């Protein structure tokens, strides 16, 4: 086999030699395709596996950790929650509408493959600077794509994040998360149960779209690639997915399915190999039986990433019943193979075995690398000059920065209330939906602080996990578990690899402390174009619950005259990275001081205070303090023309970041109770002011409420159009 062909398939010559030696024969082109699909970063985590193994993945509520289509946690009674986040970064840069739409489609399939009905989606999207036309095009396309798919299939989009920063100019990030509800006794796994079970193909016909998508997702980009790679982007059809979802859920609840696997990245190859590997069995599939949209070669069928397709195993006796249900939903269905006891993956086409490989070599012998990594140098601390900065300018700096403005323009393109169980709408600190037919609610949040992580990957990651944690706590949601999406540049650069390794360590430390295991996740590497690496962006999706929907907090002001209290500890202004960056005090990444060490015990202590006060009904509204400090948190809380009057020693304090930071609104009559509670718990608090009508007042200086609120609410749309 010639070297060029091997390299084109994304395998190194060393990797090829391993295969060649094991098989002791030449490979067919189809077999080469299979290794290309299964041994790339996207499918086998060859760079990250060593480090991911260190993450905590289990505790008393974990039903299913990483390794299945989605993680599942226990929500008492017979309720389980399945959730996962996944990236569709590269496709969304090449073709933003279809790239992001199929990202949503893929993650939803991961959820309903487990037998769970999706009940919410969230996303985390990042773009370059809005000044370029390209970013506007990407933003429009991505938001349209996410909305198009989720709205049509009818799953509420309950939140997420949207940020702009220059390192994403040529590498926008699209991470989509989905949450589903499953009955604990009806969870489906990809492991087949019996030898002789029929392998059935369910869903859309197979076409040429997405061939080599998974290996594309594991590649570094250059700008010229963009047009060339466009045919590798899949095209989604949310209507077909809706039918597929209803059809599959009906099959599962009727007990007609043994196991199921979504045909996602690397299509039929990956799903069938996974099935064989999980069950420690073999598969024999006849590719001539695969429903096709157009004439395709065996090689193309194996690698197609056409959307809205499932592979399932059923008992022979159920064949007729399965066909009947799927006919009702107008879904293609074909028996294409059988589970065997050979522990081999066999594909035949035109009466010829085109692939005949032991499962072992594809899965167990997949490469695993221990790449070189550097630990960032210790930073020297210095004092910045804040003498020239004025309060008015600080406010203007926030109100002219897209990252601080109200993002209704984005959320309004998503249906957030379909299914009738949405409690909070997007734009609040976490999205909340009710478990249908119960009083239980699920809250979820997606977060990342790339700037923090670039400064100090270990501490920065702790802050990122803590931010998700605070987002849930602020709503009186108990954080339960995590899904993560590690977006990084090329791991072949030891500096980038160092960020990956250290941030995983930070994730581990925080997850252990908060008892929030990582139950599912995804890794997206090589996010760099023209040698410009993205900032390290390991996104966290955290899920939590409250058993009583009446106990959750709002993030919005409730009543004029109520007092505003601050909990937590302010980071010093010299160590508040977003303050320094967004107030234009520090420009270059090397200028920043090191992060203050985040005290996770302190985070937990303050969080418990917020939860307890919430249960005592002492908290009228609450928001966490993150980028933009107290001021930004207060802006987000304004509601029905209610503003705030505050007094602080130094106005810059209002813009500093926090550890364990929360703004809470309390009634005057509860002031004694709340403050003595906090004092008893040893939690310091700061009373900074009160809620007033139609005003913003800082240290007796009055600002035009409507001017600020108009900018905050409406300027996002002005800037991006």
């Amino acid at each position, binding site marked *: 086999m010639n070297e060029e062909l091997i390299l084109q398939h994304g395998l190194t010559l060393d990797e090829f030699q391993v295969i060649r030696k094991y098989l002791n024969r030449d490979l067919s082109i189809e077999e080469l395709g299979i290794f290309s699909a299964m041994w790339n970063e996207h499918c086998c985590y060859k760079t990250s596996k060593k480090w991911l193994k260190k993450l905590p993945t289990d505790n008393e509520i974990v039903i299913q950790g990483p390794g299945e289509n989605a993680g599942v946690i226990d929500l008492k009674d017979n309720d389980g929650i399945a959730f996962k986040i996944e990236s569709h970064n590269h496709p969304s840069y090449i073709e933003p509408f279809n790239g992001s739409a199929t990202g949503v489609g893929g993650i939803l399939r991961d959820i309903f493959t487990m037998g769970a009905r999706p009940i919410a989606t969230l996303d985390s999207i990042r773009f370059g600077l809005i000044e370029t036309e390209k970013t506007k095009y990407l933003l429009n396309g991505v938001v*349209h794509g996410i*909305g*198009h798919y989720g*709205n*049509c*299939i*009818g799953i509420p989009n309950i939140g997420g994040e949207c940020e702009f920063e220059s390192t994403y100019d040529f590498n926008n990030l699209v991470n989509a998360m989905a949450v589903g509800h499953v009955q604990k006794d009806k969870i489906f796994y990809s492991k087949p149960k019996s030898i002789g079970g029929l392998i059935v193909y369910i869903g859309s016909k197979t076409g040429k779209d997405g061939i080599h998508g998974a290996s594309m997702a594991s590649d570094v980009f250059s700008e010229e690639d963009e047009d060339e790679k466009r045919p590798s982007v899949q095209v989604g*059809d*949310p*209507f*077909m997915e*809706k*039918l597929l979802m209803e059809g599959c859920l009906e099959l599962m609840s009727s007990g007609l399915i043994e196991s199921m696997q979504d045909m996602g990245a690397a299509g039929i190859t990956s799903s069938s190999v996974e099935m064989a590997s999980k069950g420690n069995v073999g598969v024999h599939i006849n590719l001539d039986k695969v429903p096709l949209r157009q004439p395709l070669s065996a090689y193309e069928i194996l690698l197609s990433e056409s959307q809205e397709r499932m592979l399932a195993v059923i008992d022979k006796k159920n064949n007729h019943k399965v066909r009947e249900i799927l006919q009702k*939903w*107008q879904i293609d269905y074909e028996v294409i193979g059988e589970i065997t006891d050979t522990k081999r993956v066999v594909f035949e086409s035109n009466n010829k075995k085109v692939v005949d490989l032991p499962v072992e070599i594809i899965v167990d012998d997949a490469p695993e690398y221990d790449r070189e990594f550097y630990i960032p140098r210790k930073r020297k601390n210095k004092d910045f000059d804040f003498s020239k900065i004025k309060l008015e300018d600080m406010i203007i700096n926030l109100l002219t920065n897209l990252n601080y403005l109200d993002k*209704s323009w984005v*959320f*309004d*393109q*998503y*249906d*957030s*209330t*379909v*299914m*009738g169980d*949405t*409690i909070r*709408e997007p734009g609040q600190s976490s999205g909340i939906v*009710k478990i249908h037919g119960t009083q239980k609610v699920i809250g979820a949040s997606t977060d990342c602080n790339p700037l923090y992580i670039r400064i100090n990957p270990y501490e920065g990651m702790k802050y990122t996990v803590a931010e998700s944690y605070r987002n849930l706590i602020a709503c009186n949601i108990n954080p339960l578990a995590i899904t993560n999406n590690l977006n990084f540049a090329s791991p072949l650069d030891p500096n980038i690899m160092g960020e990956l390794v250290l941030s995983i360590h930070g994730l581990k430390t925080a997850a252990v402390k908060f008892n929030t295991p990582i139950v599912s996740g995804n890794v997206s590497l090589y996010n760099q174009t023209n040698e410009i690496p993205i900032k390290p962006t390991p996104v966290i999706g955290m899920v939590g619950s409250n058993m009583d*929907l009446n106990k959750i907090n709002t993030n919005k002001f409730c009543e004029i005259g109520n007092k505003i209290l601050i909990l937590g500890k302010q980071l010093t202004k010299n160590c508040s990275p977003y303050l320094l960056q967004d107030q234009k005090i520090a420009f270059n990444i090397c200028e920043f001081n090191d992060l203050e060490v985040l005290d996770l015990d302190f985070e937990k202590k303050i969080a418990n205070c917020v939860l307890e006060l919430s249960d005592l009904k002492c908290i009228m509204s609450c928001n966490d303090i993150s980028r933009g400090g107290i001021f930004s948190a207060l802006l987000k809380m304004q*509601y*029905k*023309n209610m503003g705030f009057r505050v007094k602080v020693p130094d106005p810059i304090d209002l813009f500093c970041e926090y550890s364990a930071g929360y703004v809470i609104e309390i009634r005057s009559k509860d002031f004694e109770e709340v403050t003595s509670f906090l004092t008893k718990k040893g939690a310091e608090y700061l009373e900074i002011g009160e809620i007033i009508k139609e005003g913003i007042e800082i240290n007796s200086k009055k600002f035009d409420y409507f001017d600020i609120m108009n900018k905050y*609410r*409406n300027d996002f749309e002005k800037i991006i159009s």
Partner: protein
Amino acid sequence: MSFKSAVITFPGSNCDRDALCYLKDLTKGEVHNIWHEETSLPKVDLVILPGGFSFGDYLRSGAMASKSKIIDEVVKHANDNRYLLGICNGFQILTEIGLLEGALIRNKKLKFLGKNCFIKKKFKNNFNLSIKDNQILQIPIAHNEGNFYCDIETLNLLKNNEQIAFEYCKGEFSNTEENINGSIEAIAGITNKKKNVLGMMPHPERAYSDFHQSQDGRLIIESLIS
């Protein structure tokens, strides 16, 4: 005598479950779910054509669903002077069947709109009896094609016959425009001439439970039952 109702499900409907819950919780009566391929409809007081993307909005929103087998029965039900309510995609289907005038075209800004909107009643009918004049209701919308359009003659007919049930308006503290999607005369919902068929873009079935942001959607069912 208990109030009986039914919800039709088309492939791609995604508010059928919401509509069923809405009816069960508020009417306390019998509620049927009818698959689009069925050819008979139980005798009920109210039929809802729910929101969603029936048949993936292929061709035109509502166009394919208007040719479904069950539609003959739905038309008979309406001709029998019983209540028929089309919500969102259901409204689009009603205009495609021809039970309601006009058409729903793309929103003025050519973007999907999923947010709270505010409406008030225009002319009285049995669907809005319990709503006071000038009472502002907060109800979510979620549509891409909700911009009501008709020619001037039709508009005059709708006015003269008092067929306009709801119009969009501004909420007390809302930041949204008065006419949220650009509909002609801010029309949010219309009835047929006999006023037993209502089509509306806002989703009352997402605004009735205690945990919803608003409970104003109850008023429509309360009006019908009273």
